[in-house]
């Protein structure tokens, strides 16, 4: 019996997350290796920061992709749900910034 392949959205999400993690890992690895050979180099720390940033932004991109896909499929209910989750993530960032650095 052949197993039915995953729908298009699932496959796009899989690719986004797979290649996104790979890209972020390469950036971080390049930064770490560069930093090991040339301590104190600005380029190394910028690469590392960029890599960490890509990791953090990746789930937000995933939400954006889902919202767009549901919108294209005229599935407005789930497009709305994905948008709400994305909005909560954005609010969390704004609130976090406003509050300032945590104690300790």
């Amino acid at each position, binding site marked *: 019996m052949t197993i039915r392949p995953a729908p298009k959205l699932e496959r796009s999400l899989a690719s986004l*997350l797979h290649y996104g*993690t790979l890209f972020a890992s390469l950036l971080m690895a390049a*930064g770490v290796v560069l*930093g090991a050979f040339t301590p104190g180099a600005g380029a190394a720390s910028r690469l590392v920061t960029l890599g960490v940033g890509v990791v953090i932004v990746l789930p*937000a991109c995933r939400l954006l992709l889902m919202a767009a896909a549901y919108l294209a499929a005229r599935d407005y209910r789930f497009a709305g749900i994905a948008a709400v989750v994305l909005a909560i993530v954005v609010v969390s960032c704004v609130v976090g910034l406003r509050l300032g650095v945590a104690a300790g």
Partner: protein
Amino acid sequence: METWTTFLLLFIAFGCSTLGGMLGMASGLFIVPALNLGLHMNLHEAIGASLVSVIACSCASAAPYLRGRLTNVRLAVLLEIGTTLGALSGVLLIGVVPVRALYLLFTLIMLLSAWQMLARRTEPAAPAMPAGAAAPAGMHASYPDPATGRELRYVVTRVPAGLALMYVAGLVSALLGIGSGVLKVPAMDSALRLPIRVSTATSNFMIGVTACASACAYFLRGEIVTTVAAPVALGSVAGSIAGAHILMRTPVRRLRVFFVAILVLVAAQMLLHGLD
């Protein structure tokens, strides 16, 4: 950051994540104590670094589950309303909650994980009647049984109760820098009644977005030390891949006992720190 520290971080994260991956657990539960107790890093710094590795591991392992149609994407995004609201509350609270309370909460979660590991997880009984009105349309689904390739259908029940439990999971995740899998399991098993393979895949898929809500805030405030977070994330991703491979070949029973012992030991250490 000195070079040897970077490699130490890589090595520690790899070890923690391999350990976690062997039993299908997230690594945050081990990484935070390793950084905090082992390397004497500030607890907030350890939580920030751990959150980044939690996202990286969730994203890195998502693809096979998605391609195998084990992840219920619709259910995941709906439940993420609960987890991200919880994470938002965590971001609001992290500066207010005393560090001592964080240690105590961490101890509690570790003991809960140990208990959960001892109590065998059984496949939840499938709900008798498809509760069509209870779940929004398009959430019931099916997944291929890996042994036979046959389609197994399942229905989703009691979504509101699931959402409430997910809120707590998101809150704890943001406060402690962990994936909170231990709190998602009861939500998935007793409220939503999902098949275990589906709930593992779906919960793993949600962890990334949950941790993103809090990690974004900490990152923008400059509270995530990237020279620590990067090697920890790299080591974790490599370790989770290695751990998943070992999982298939090790007798699981002996591993459980070993794990429970480690969890209780580390929990005791965290408790002592909290009471200090």
